[in-house]
């Protein structure tokens, strides 16, 4: 996590794996503020905070959850393409259940619906995990099955319609506020913090990384590789289901076709921007966190700066390309060499942990 490098000077800061993502995020915020000086201001409206930063924090919640699961899956050398489909199914199940219930506005109904959707998400994750860890199907193929079939299933559940409901308790999850903050943000950040604590304060993170680096060796060393892989896919399904609930609650509608469409790509992008290698092994949840914020800010930047929809994909691609280039091991090596050559002689002390993303060593930072 980011605090590991207190000393080490400027060079160490630049070499930190979070340096460039954070620079990109700050730059995006700076551009937005330059266009509209009030961009970062937050006011209080109807007893809750209101402003662009709050919008970013709320709208990034679903991606935050999906990317969290994706980080763990990628760390085991896997990939989960089915997250978008799970998002759609989860929203479809919850809203169809609420819509069919005698009293859509009752808390019990809503809790039941949430419980059902989460349980189903977990089951779908377990299914993916089963295909990958037990049957040994490559993750990209195994999850492609659900990616393809999932939206069809969601469409069957909603009967091809966009299901809408009116239910105050359900609306709380995606569009409500608690203590002035969006509930969606609190939920997503809470889950994120919990998982971060779990993988970094216990040996779990290290086990996940060891499986990602070399599953066979880990198994021989006594790590239950199969269980670990199975677990991360199950978690990815669970988190995607929660993301689906937040997404559908935000607009109070389950759109089987469009809910979470391409969210798998955004999630993979967030993970990569955050400095986790798709080759598996060392992963950085803090990096994913910043990556998600960058993507959410990028979306709002398009509206705020007023970029024409015709060039939006290009604009996004340029920002992403810039960040990933700066994140690439080769580029980082070049840049850090340059800072060293400038005579700042950043001492490479043994305590100075290597922050290179491509390091294949297990570093529980």
């Amino acid at each position: 996590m980011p605090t590991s490098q207190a000393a080490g000077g400027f060079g160490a800061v630049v070499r930190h794996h979070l340096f460039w993502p954070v620079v990109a995020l700050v730059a995006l915020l700076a551009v937005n503020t330059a266009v509209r000086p009030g961009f970062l201001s937050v006011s209080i409206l109807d007893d809750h905070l209101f402003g662009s930063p709050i919008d970013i924090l709320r709208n990034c919640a679903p991606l935050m959850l999906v990317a969290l699961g994706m980080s763990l899956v990628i760390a085991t050398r896997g990939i989960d393409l089915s997250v978008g489909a799970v998002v759609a199914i989860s929203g479809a199940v919850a809203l169809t259940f609420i819509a069919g219930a005698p009293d859509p506005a009752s808390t019990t109904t809503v809790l039941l619906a949430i419980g059902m959707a989460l349980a189903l998400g977990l089951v779908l994750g377990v299914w993916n995990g089963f295909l990958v860890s037990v049957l040994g199907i490559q993750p990209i193929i195994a999850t492609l099955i659900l990616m393809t079939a999932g939206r069809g299933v969601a469409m069957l559940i909603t009967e091809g319609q966009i299901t809408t409901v009116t239910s105050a308790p359900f609306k709380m999850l995606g569009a409500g506020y608690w203590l002035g903050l969006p509930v969606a943000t609190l939920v997503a950040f809470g889950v994120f913090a919990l998982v971060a604590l779990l993988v970094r304060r216990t040996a779990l993170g290290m086990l996940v990384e060891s499986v990602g680096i070399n599953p066979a060796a880990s198994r021989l060393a006594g790590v239950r590789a199969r269980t670990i892989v199975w677990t991360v896919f199950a978690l990815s399904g669970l988190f995607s289901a929660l993301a689906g609930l937040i997404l559908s609650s935000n607009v109070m509608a389950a759109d089987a076709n469009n809910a979470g469409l391409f969210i798998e790509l955004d999630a993979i992008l967030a993970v990569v921007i955050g400095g986790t290698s798709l080759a598996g092994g060392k992963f950085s949840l803090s990096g994913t966190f910043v990556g998600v914020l960058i993507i959410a800010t990028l979306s709002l930047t398009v509206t705020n700066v007023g970029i024409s929809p015709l060039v939006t994909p290009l604009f996004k691609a340029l920002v992403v390309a810039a960040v990933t280039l700066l994140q690439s091991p080769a580029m980082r090596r070049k840049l850090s060499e340059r800072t060293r050559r400038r005579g700042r002689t950043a001492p490479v002390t043994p305590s100075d942990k290597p922050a290179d993303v491509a390091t294949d060593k297990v570093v529980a930072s």
Partner: protein
Amino acid sequence: MSKNFRRAGAALFVTALTAASLVACSSEQAPQGAGDGGGESAAASDTIVLGFSQVGAESGWRAANTKSIQDTLTKENGFDLKFSDAQQKQENQIQAIRSYIQQQVDVIAFSPVVETGWDAVLEEAKAADIPVILTDRAVDSEDDTLYESFIGSDFVEEGKRAGEWAVEQYDGEGYKAVELQGTTGAAPMIDRQQGFADAIAGSDIEMIDSQTGNFTRTEGKQVMEGFLQKYDDIDLVFAHNDDMGLGAIEAIEAAGKVPGKDIKIITVDGVKDGMQALADGKINYIVECNPLLGPDLAEIAKKVVAGEEVEKRIVTQDEAFDQEAAKAALPDRQY
């Protein structure tokens, strides 16, 4: 109605996978009692065998469109409908059309998923002497003898009617408007934008910003949130479909304003949720994009089979609703 443009990429990516068959939408729905009789019945009786290939079931609009066709082209009305759902994939549609050619149906009708790439299969139909009717969407082909007629809404006209109503109601008040566009490059998006812009030209309604919401609620809401932070003097929203308008309502309410009053909303489509919001006073005006193409299709198909001349372009009658009209129309809405 054209969300599938975005999905084309993803669809291509996964086409090869047979898992698609798990998508359990039935691909052949024989209408009630139609049996599996091929084209031979057509020669014997007056029944017109019509093969229809639908885009898919991607929206409420599409569902209503399908229902209208299935309810109109019935045995009682003299049709034997062969219906297939292409699940937003062009190759499925081409396959369906080929199978209709082999079955020697009397008429083929379809809503093309995309505009291009139809020449080959339409040539085959022409060679087999089977007339083709397009519904809802056009094909982009040099040779317009490949189809008999195109039945569908005029998207430019829809945008224009929305704009004209805005001018009629709000001209002279210096309104500042924002636009939620459909999927970039989709025909309804381009045409509705143009129609609206033409209509408000010359009035003092000023379009201050325009951004894509991809025809979806979620993105409509997000873009509107951005607009609301960026400008504090928005008076009017023009959304290219109901769903984005419904997303904008959520954003406006979250910003502590009253949709329909503080900020006026005009949309296109007229699906049930949109009409409900209109009746509730949250939307101010909806230009309908009529999905009930069944009756028109039946009429044209009969004429084509009888050998009569038909018009190349048939524009469906779209209605438009204000809040009072919506309250009156809502109980009888079919979709």
